[in-house]
């Protein structure tokens, strides 16, 4: 049976791990290689690195981070942030990434998804979708969501569900769905859009944005709530609030099928 995944995410700026609230107010929380190794040992099902630097030097530093992290872990590594063209994907895969997430560039040119999937296989192309709920108009009963790009600063006019469907049809292997309204708030995922996308698209969906507790992870993965295939979180793990092992344990106790935590023999994992 396929298990639900718990994916810690590291936001990387200039080679260091940072975590912001609403993608702003960044603060430095440490060395990515050290963090990645810790998560791998704690039993993370996968690891995600997002590059949030804007400069060319930052980009080169990021590729170096990917290379160093890939050399330390034996779980899948998804990377994203600033991926514009096929050459970026090639560079990240060559550095040891297993999957590459594209976001704004796919919105600008949806056929990029097909081009990348044809070349590298759907299993390694993730389409990252940042969404924001639109203020309901009088008479609208269902909430509507819009796709935003450039870290949530720019509207696209795309409706979230149809964009996710289109991305899947073009060959995306997974959707990484982030709620901009929830990101950094620690009030939990936006379950409505997570469930809607997860039920609509035929490919796995990773819930992202807003986790502040283990219960939020459970909600994201519960088939009747978020219905996501994987739960991504950053700050609850970074700030040492919980370990991955604790998260797995909590989920298993609450009926979510997860891969049991397997500690390396002879090494005591505390917490």
């Amino acid at each position, binding site marked *: *049976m*396929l*298990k*639900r*995944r718990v994916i810690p995410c590291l936001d990387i700026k200039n080679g260091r791990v940072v975590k912001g609230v609403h993608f702003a107010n960044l603060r430095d929380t440490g060395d990515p290689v050290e963090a990645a190794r810790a998560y*791998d040992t704690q*039993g993370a*099902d*996968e690891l995600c690195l997002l590059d949030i630097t804007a400069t060319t030097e930052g980009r080169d530093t990021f590729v170096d981070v990917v290379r160093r992290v*890939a*050399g330390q872990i*034996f*779980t*899948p590594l998804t990377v994203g942030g600033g991926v514009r063209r096929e050459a970026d994907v090639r560079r990240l*895969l*060559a550095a*040891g990434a*297993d999957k590459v997430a594209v976001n704004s560039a796919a919105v600008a040119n949806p056929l990029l998804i097909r081009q990348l999937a044809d070349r*590298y*296989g*759907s*299993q*390694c192309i993730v389409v990252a979708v940042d969404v924001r709920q639109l203020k309901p108009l009088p008479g609208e009963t269902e909430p509507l969501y819009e796709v935003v790009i450039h870290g949530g600063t720019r509207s696209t006019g795309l409706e979230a569900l149809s964009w996710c469907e289109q991305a899947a049809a073009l060959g995306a*292997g*997974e959707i990484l769905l982030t709620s901009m309204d929830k990101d950094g708030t620690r009030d939990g995922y936006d379950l409505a859009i997570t469930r809607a996308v*997860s*039920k609509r*698209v*035929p*490919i*796995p*969906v990773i819930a992202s944005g807003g986790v502040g507790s283990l219960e939020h992870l459970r909600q994201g993965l519960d*088939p009747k709530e978020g*219905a996501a*295939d*994987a739960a991504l979180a950053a700050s609850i793990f970074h700030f040492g609030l919980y370990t991955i092992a604790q998260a797995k344990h909590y989920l298993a106790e609450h009926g979510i099928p997860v*891969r*049991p935590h*397997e500690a*390396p023999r002879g090494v005591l994992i505390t917490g």
Partner: protein
Amino acid sequence: MPREVILVDSQLGNLDSVEHALIQVGASVIVSSDPDRVATARMVVFPGQGSFGPTTRGLVDGAMGAALRMVIERGDPFLGICLGMQLLFEHSEEGGGSDGLKVLPGRVRRFPADMRAGDEPDASRLKIPHMGWSDVQPTGEHFYFAHSYYVETTDPSLVMWWCRYGSVEFPATIARGNVFGCQFHPEKSQWSGLRFLRSFILGGRA
């Protein structure tokens, strides 16, 4: 003296993580895309990501295909990973249909699009690719899978471990004499994956 393994670079995906995992379990790894070099190997690991199609057709019909068959026929330990395992079989329906190396009996098929997560009529549709950690039987260990196609073999005695996704039960690992294959990615499967690779490296068995 560490076991020397030839890791076949056939342009079917990134080799670094497989190399890294093999070194971790004590192998000395030589990466090669040279069929002559591969033909002389005493132990071969053949990884692959992506899909059957033009690249695999060139490989199957070319010198690399001949070299891989030679290693297998000679009886040296051989491990195919993911697409590398699927290529051992006769044919795949992927990409309009392509032949494999035809070392083992069976065909590669796509997961049906309409599989459900349970028996209830409103149960959610299962996602394709089958992506993530699934347990295998009979050991109950978890491995990382990322695939839309699976092997359907006419010879169940080939199958060492099974995995189930939706209504499909498919081989997670296969073994016939010196030939081994795994559908999962042992290099991405943490301790269970490293144990699997170590048993192959040490015993020439999986």
